[in-house]
């Protein structure tokens, strides 16, 4: 195949233009004082997509195990916040968008450097040292932030409020594009090879340390950029925003989406961020309702498991049975909720928001039971895949067959 530079450059240029236009459009739609809540949600969703996809580069694609991603997110956030409050306060006030861009850059550099310092020694060694070290780094960064006067101690730090759905969605898209292009390149194969078999990769001439450190530094840098954007979106940073819970939430997004799948991670990031966020607004509910729902979910899961174990029909037959058991689950949940509410002991009212975390946990357990490899497994969204779903044979599969 002849390499056609003009064509290659043309496709690139078009995708960049489309991406920028898309982000501008999103920004436009989200303008206006009445949309501030949705703008905030949208921004955070974009930030979580960046965080999850960048962790996926480390954990999913390269097969390392970092569990302290929030530390790099925090380093970027504090870098942006501190700089905007001191040296760059003038720029932040006069040219907010330019500053926001620079803040993301500085955040990325700071977090990337931290990633290099942490990653170089721990990734040289065989074994899961990275997990232990990143766990520690999360704590260390938080302790430093909590004890430094200039970082606002436990209370936190205010900084300029600069919202930009444009930059946040652009960062998410750039992060996705970088990971995707990496996978398509010859060097990207090396990342996947390291995940699959370190010994064989080394025998092929892959420099294991270099590949692992590159993935780790790149992933950390994207988290840092996301942190800087977060700091200005919220105009305030404080240690709890970057606690261990946040690291675990990001990790869950990667595992749930399908370790290694960029598509799956992106979807999981949006869903997992929105579930607890939406449930924050729940009114007071009677205790019988959630109990009934929980029982319904359990019934549905048990039925689905049974079907998967015993029934190997065609795809559409299986889909029918699966939908059927979900339906049964919903009916059971509805009936149980109604019945339980009539029992005096379950009539007391409690705050619905309390159920945020349990519901998230139950959702995760259900998904892991049904699909341990994550929603997408190793698969990616592609046009030939869509065609296959629609029942057409893609040209590629015909050649292979």
């Amino acid at each position, binding site marked *: 195949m002849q390499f056609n530079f003009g064509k290659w450059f043309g496709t690139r240029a078009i995708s960049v233009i489309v991406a920028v236009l898309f982000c501008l459009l999103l920004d436009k739609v989200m303008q206006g004082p009445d949309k501030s809540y949705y703008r905030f949600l949208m921004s955070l969703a974009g930030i979580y997509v960046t965080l999850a996809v960048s962790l996926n580069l480390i954990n999913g694609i390269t097969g390392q195990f970092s569990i302290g991603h929030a530390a790099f997110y925090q380093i970027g956030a504090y870098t942006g916040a501190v700089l905007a409050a001191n040296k760059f306060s003038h720029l932040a006030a006069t040219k907010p968008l330019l500053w926001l861009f620079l803040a993301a850059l500085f955040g990325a550099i700071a977090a990337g450097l931290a990633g290099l310092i942490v990653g170089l020694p721990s990734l040289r060694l065989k074994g899961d040292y990275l997990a232990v070290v990143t766990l520690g780094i999360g704590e260390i960064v938080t302790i430093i932030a909590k004890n430094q006067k200039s970082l606002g101690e436990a209370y936190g730090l205010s900084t300029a409020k600069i919202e930009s759905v444009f930059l946040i969605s652009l960062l998410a898209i750039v992060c996705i594009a970088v990971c995707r292009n990496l996978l398509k390149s010859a060097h990207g*194969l090396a990342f*996947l*090879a390291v995940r*699959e078999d370190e*010994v064989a990769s*080394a025998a*092929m001439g*892959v420099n294991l340390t270099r590949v692992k450190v590159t993935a780790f530094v790149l992933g950390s840098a994207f988290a840092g950029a996301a942190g800087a954007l977060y700091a200005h979106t919220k105009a305030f940073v404080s240690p709890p925003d970057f606690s261990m819970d946040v690291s675990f939430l990001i990790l869950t997004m990667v595992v749930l989406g399908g370790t290694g799948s960029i598509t799956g991670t992106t979807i999981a990031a949006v869903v997992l961020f929105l579930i607890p966020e939406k449930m924050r607004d729940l009114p007071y509910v009677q205790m019988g309702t959630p109990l009934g729902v929980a029982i319904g979910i359990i019934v549905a899961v048990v039925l689905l498991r049974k079907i998967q174990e015993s029934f190997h029909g065609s795809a559409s037959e299986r889909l029918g049975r699966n939908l059927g058991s979900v339906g049964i689950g919903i009916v059971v949940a509805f009936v149980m909720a109604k019945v339980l509410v009539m029992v005096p002991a379950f009539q007391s009212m409690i705050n619905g928001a309390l159920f945020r975390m349990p519901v998230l946990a139950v959702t995760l357990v259900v998904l892991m039971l049904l699909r341990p490899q994550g929603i997408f497994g*190793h698969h990616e969204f592609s046009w030939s895949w869509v065609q296959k779903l629609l029942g057409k044979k893609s040209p590629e599969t015909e050649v292979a067959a």
Partner: protein
Amino acid sequence: MLETKNLNVFYGAINALNDVSITVQPGEIVAIIGSNGAGKSTLLRTISGLIRPRSGSVSYNGKELTTLQPHEIVKLGLSHAPEGRRIFTNMTVEENLQLGAYLRKDKAGVAADMEMVLGRFPRLKERFKQNSGTMSGGEQQMLAIGRALMSRPEILLLDEPSLGLAPFLITEIFNIVKDLNADGKTVLIVEQNANRALEIAHRAYVLETGELVLQGSGQELLHDPKVKEAYLGG
């Protein structure tokens, strides 16, 4: 010339290689035979830099290898097809072969070698875009050898290429090794299938629990009474 001198390798307290010295001259097929756990794979892994010896040296054309990283050793022209094939089963045949050429920058040369490998292993050509994990054991072994060839090595280190294959496939694999050698590749081959290995080897070493106990030409060892009794089934 590849040379090891007084190699001592330990796994914890286990002394896997004890004062092992071998030489491989350009153009030779050299076989290492020995029973399970003798240290054959350990010797290959030490040469290709995957493990470090406690003492002793490995040199290639006068250059010391024991201080180098595996990827630097590949660059010098040694290619290791490790025990158990270890192909990348989640990748296609094409991607496996591309990874074999990972360190090469000469695109035209890589493309030519890809053609050469596919010409030598027509089965790989048929399965070019197929996930390599779905191939048969014999096809996977051919891929492992083909992949090792993609770095255009001067020396090929083969660890039990006949393991788990049907007799007719074993014959095919050994014929391929002979052909590669006739085309100028130097081969260091580790085998439990001593009979076949000695038939094609110019020289061979016998390894027993980490120590070299015998060496000689392939034909000599093939007719040595001790070797016959211990490794060739009497």
